[in-house]
């Protein structure tokens, strides 16, 4: 292979700035989407366990809809189709006046998709709790809502920290798809550096390292949370 290695481009302007700008957008997309995914996913996961059948069915429908369509397709639908389906004025506003439309769309799409996956983790966490443990809460006079607040949720969130870690990692990796609708996140910037300098190996190596650093930090953070919140005596506890 005849390739002119030149690592120094990574440290020259404007390319260094591009990389950091890309890193920043990756973090902004992923973290904002995670907030949506966590809040919405928790709500839907909880609704999947309530006694009311209609509510359960609607929540299940959300999960099946959003986790069974490829994320890329969803992203395009949110970007190209949804604005056309909105009431005319709102649609116009989204297309013309909404600040940062690519960013907002990417966050919403990624958040809504990941919410379906978080919902499944939350649901399974809640459903691993024995019926009689919930009964014990009811027996001391807690309302069903209070059994969620003080028993079911505190226990199930502790159980699902490991699978949630995977979802949190995935959201950083999936955020790279935002480049398809024009968000200049890390992958897009690496590609741009390649276009300008023909130093693709260096650019993508830099992106790879930055992704790895982010995800390893996430793993560390989640491990810390796991250790801090773990129920003494549960599986895997020290």
């Amino acid at each position, binding site marked *: 292979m005849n390739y002119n290695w030149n690592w120094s481009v990574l440290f020259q302007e404007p390319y260094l700035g591009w990389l950091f700008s890309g890193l920043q957008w990756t973090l902004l997309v992923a973290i904002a989407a995670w907030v949506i995914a966590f809040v919405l996913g928790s709500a839907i996961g909880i609704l999947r366990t309530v006694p009311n059948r209609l509510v359960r069915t609607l929540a299940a429908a959300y999960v099946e809809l959003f986790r069974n369509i490829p994320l890329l397709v969803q992203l395009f639908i949110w970007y190209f189709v949804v604005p056309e389906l909105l009431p005319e004025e709102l649609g116009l506003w989204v297309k013309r006046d909404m600040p940062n439309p690519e960013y907002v769309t990417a966050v919403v799409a990624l958040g809504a998709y990941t919410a379906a996956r978080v919902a499944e983790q939350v649901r399974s966490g809640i459903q691993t709790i024995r019926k*009689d443990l919930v009964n014990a809460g009811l027996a*001391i006079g*807690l309302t069903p809502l209070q059994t969620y607040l003080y028993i079911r949720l505190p226990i199930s969130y*502790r159980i699902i920290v490991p699978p949630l870690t995977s979802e949190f990692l995935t959201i950083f990796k999936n955020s790279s798809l935002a480049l398809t609708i024009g968000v200049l996140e890390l992958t897009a910037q690496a590609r741009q550096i390649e276009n300008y300098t023909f130093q693709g190996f260096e650019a993508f190596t830099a992106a790879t390292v930055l992704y790895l650093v982010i995800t390893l930090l996430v793993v560390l953070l989640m491990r810390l949370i796991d250790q801090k919140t773990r129920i003494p*005596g*549960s599986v895997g506890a020290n």
Partner: protein
Amino acid sequence: MIKIDNIDKWYDDFHVLKSCSLEVERGEVIVICGPSGSGKSTLIKCVNALEPVDSGRIVVEETDVTAKGTKLPLVRARIGMVFQHFELFPHKTVIENLMMGQIKVLNRSRDEARRKAESLLERVGLSDQADKYPSALSGGQQQRVAIARALAMDPIAMCFDEPTSALDPEMISEVLDVMVELAREGMTMMVVTHEMGFARKVARRVVFMDQGEVKEVAATETFFNNPETDRAKEFLSKILAH
């Protein structure tokens, strides 16, 4: 005080409780026994509506537990319940287990709840375990905590669902001792158990259930010495033989 009036319950097409009736007076200790699958646990869980009934009525001190619109949390808070597998809240320390209901349901202050919890832990002999998590305790200790947790709500009656059947043999007596003491203090108790020694010691009456039916309700000595039904005779001969 507790009046179970002709209740029926189905799990899909399985008839778990067949026209069961039973009355428990204030201060009375009743032991419910019978082969597994006879509906004992289901019956006792109906008393505080942890299991809904399909027909019939259960009245606890003037409150119709089975009526629509009854504020169940308030009814349940007044009936202590002890489960076969303890069911302590695993993410809370022992003392927090005893405080939760007092604070969230009875609206007691933290200090008040803590004082009550401490005195109950002392009563069941577990003062030194207050700040441990349930998983660090033995089964017998966990069950005593569970009894204390129920007592923390100042219940008017206590229901026990096979409180000793998940315990190692040498831990059974520490739990039974607490229950005997409770019975002697005049607590109204419904106890599902196979501990016939306990029944003989404190129960005023014994209820024998089989296949979802209350087959026999008799004064304790009568039940052991002279059971009415053949099914009860057979049951007694099997469990008293060993």
